């Protein structure tokens, strides 16, 4: 059976707050699935529900087709990093992994292997209380990898990592996905996932806003816009607007044109003798697409600050 995470009609409320509202999705193996949404969107709650830590009010969450709580040695089925701070500061890094290994009957050798894998072998005997956030993240990831599980969940793993660490974790996630595992990674910043994720689940106020591949989302956001770079901005704008396009000036040399194909724009400009130095299909950033999607779903909306 292929490893999977499956969530059906999941709903959870804490007091009056609905944290997760009828959430349904499936996470497939072999690719990195990004779980994005603003802070408070319900990402961590969803992960806790999948891991059987919190009990849903409605719906269910299954890992490999079964409820997490029914797993006997869960560490070899699912690895999870929820909160890098969730360890006793007085315990050595190695002992933290050792008790986890013991609880599932895993060998001591695995502890040393994962410490090596996350680059903490040299500080294995230091107490976790003295670790930087980045080191704790690595320790948490080591814990997730302990049972070499086919399903991996990471909640905001990039938090606190230095640039080198960020590059490392991207590589790790990609290589784990290539091995055919389910990789489910949350972040509140789309940019963190931009180069890593293959598939995206976008969450806003507890609801699923988008369940799409990264490519599709980018295409949708880009639309059929064309960027034009020209030294005669005003002439170009008038010309293209008269031809029926919607034109927006990005800066004094760059225009974004909507409603005309690139070929037609090139023909019009050349015919009118308006020079241009660049003409290309507009490529929206995922961040843009994400902002677009979550505009209405941001939990704490700060009024936009305008430049004077």
């Amino acid at each position: 059976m292929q490893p999977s995470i499956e969530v059906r009609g999941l709903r959870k409320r804490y007091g009056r707050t609905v944290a997760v509202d009828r959430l349904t999705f499936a996470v497939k193996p072999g690719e990195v699935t990004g779980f994005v949404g603003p802070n408070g969107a319900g990402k961590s709650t969803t992960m806790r529900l999948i891991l059987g830590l919190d009990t849903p009010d409605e719906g269910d969450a299954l890992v490999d087709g079964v409820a997490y709580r029914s797993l006997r040695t869960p560490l070899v089925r699912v690895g999870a990093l929820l909160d890098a701070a969730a360890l006793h500061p007085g315990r050595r890094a190695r002992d933290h992994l050792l008790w986890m290994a013991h609880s599932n009957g895993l060998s001591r050798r695995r502890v040393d292997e994962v410490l090596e894998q996350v680059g903490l072998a040299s500080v294995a005997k230091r107490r976790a209380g003295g670790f930087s956030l980045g080191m704790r993240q690595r320790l948490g990831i080591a814990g997730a990898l302990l049972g070499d599980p086919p399903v991996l969940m990471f909640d905001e793993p990039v938090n606190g990592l230095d640039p080198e660490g960020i590059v490392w974790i991207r590589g790790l996630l990609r290589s784990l996905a290539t091995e055919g595992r389910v990789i489910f990674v949350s972040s509140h910043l789309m940019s963190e996932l931009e180069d890593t994720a293959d598939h995206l689940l976008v969450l806003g106020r507890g609801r699923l806003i988008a369940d799409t591949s990264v490519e599709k989302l980018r295409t949708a956001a880009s639309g059929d816009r064309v960027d034009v770079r020209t030294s005669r901005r005003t002439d170009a704008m008038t010309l293209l607007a008269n031809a029926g396009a919607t034109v927006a000036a990005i800066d004094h040399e760059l225009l974004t044109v909507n409603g005309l194909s690139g070929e037609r724009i090139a023909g019009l400009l050349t015919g009118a003798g308006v020079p241009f130095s660049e003409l290309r299909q507009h490529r929206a950033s995922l961040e843009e697409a994400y902002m677009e999607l979550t505009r209405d779903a941001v939990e704490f909306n700060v009024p936009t600050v305008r430049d004077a």
Partner: protein
Amino acid sequence: MMSAARDGFGQLLLAEWTKLRSVRRWVLALAALVVLSVGFSLFASAGSGTDSNKHPDFVVGPNGRPVADEFQFVHQPLTGDGSVVARVVSQQNSHAWAGAGVMIKDGTRSGSRYAALMVTPKHGVRLSANYEVSRAGRAGGVPRWLRLTRTGNSVTGYESTDGATWHKVGTVDMRGLPPTAEVGLFVSSPPKVVVTRSAGTTSVAEGPTTGTATFDSVRVDGAQATGSAVWQSDRVTQPHAQDTLEGVPDFKRRGGPSTGSTEANGVFTVTGSGEIGPRESPDDPVQAALFGILIGLMVIAAMGVLYMTSEFKRGMIRTTFVASPRRGRVLAAKAVVLGTTAFVLGLVATVVSFRLGLPLLRDGGFAPPAYPTPKLTEWPVLRAVVGTAAFVALIAVFALGVGAILRHSAGAITAVLALVILPAFVAIALPTTGALWLMRLTPAGGFAIQRAKPPSNMLAEAWSAIDPWAGLGVVFAYAVVALALAAWLLRRRDA
């Protein structure tokens, strides 16, 4: 991809043990448990003293332990096998445990071997021997026929309401009784003890009682009995604490002139005062030697709570439950690991405290004969030493449960200490009944297991008055209930 994994309770125990031993602060706390317990025990032992041997109110019995042996004895010698029989016609109700009956005794020295068959005002027929054995016969009082028969080294008691149908009460081993022993009638009447508790003090007032009984049909049969031997009446007496104290003017009035016996037409009227039986001070050197465990209990209460609440502090519990989703088993593993650790360390603390504390207590006056040297091989002593370790273990488990219920370190530690330590102090200020119930209903009753001596209500410490097992049982119940509630809540709550 998957590693070889094993699922089992043993794995969980190993995981929880790893957690416990890998936090340095906890290891230090557990070491402190032993060191502080022993230290405070020795401190308390060195400060404890008694003058019981200087002012004895006992005689030394054949078993080497302090006994009471005082009564009126109307007797004649009997050599070899034989029996003494008499009917107790009347008995004054001077004390529930007053005795009127027949006796065979090694002379008239207080503290010597004896076997006695008696009727009592409230407790029916009793066969007692050598201050140790006390066997109940049938219920009921006078009139009653009583017979003691000696056959070699054993003595058998029979009783009858009509002198025709006899019931065997029992046979006692009387090895060490010389061939010629004194047989006859006796009357005893124990002193009245009034214990008053008020606002932190316990005062014990003791006053003698005097009882009279009449006998007829008195006969001594034996191979070498003359049948016409002269009856002799003696008061068997023992020292009293007051006798050796100066400035107590009225001690000579005790009992003295009011006891004795008369005989007219075969009817004996005997008046006696005093008690026959063990007379050990309720003060318990074993408990004194284990006093410092009180500190160990405070340490383990905090440890037990922290071992659990530290899981909740930083979301550790999520890591724990992700690794082991079966929450009840996690709690059980924690309880086993912590309980076993606490028991082992508690045992080290009690054994060391006992070994090192006893010589100090001995120097302070807790010495034979008033205080026979307690040995670990004696059951009540072993019970106290091992039971106290079990007390420590149960408090640890109780604290663990409370920690899981409240999920808050300071609150849980306060709650545990309030339930374990506070009642012990509150009880001191309460009247006897209130104090007794407080001990039966709170874990403070567990301190009763520290005692190697029988329960006594004559001491300031309220737990002394309840049975050791009753006390430990309360703690056990608290631990089980706390754990069950904790398990239920852990399963029900979101982690």
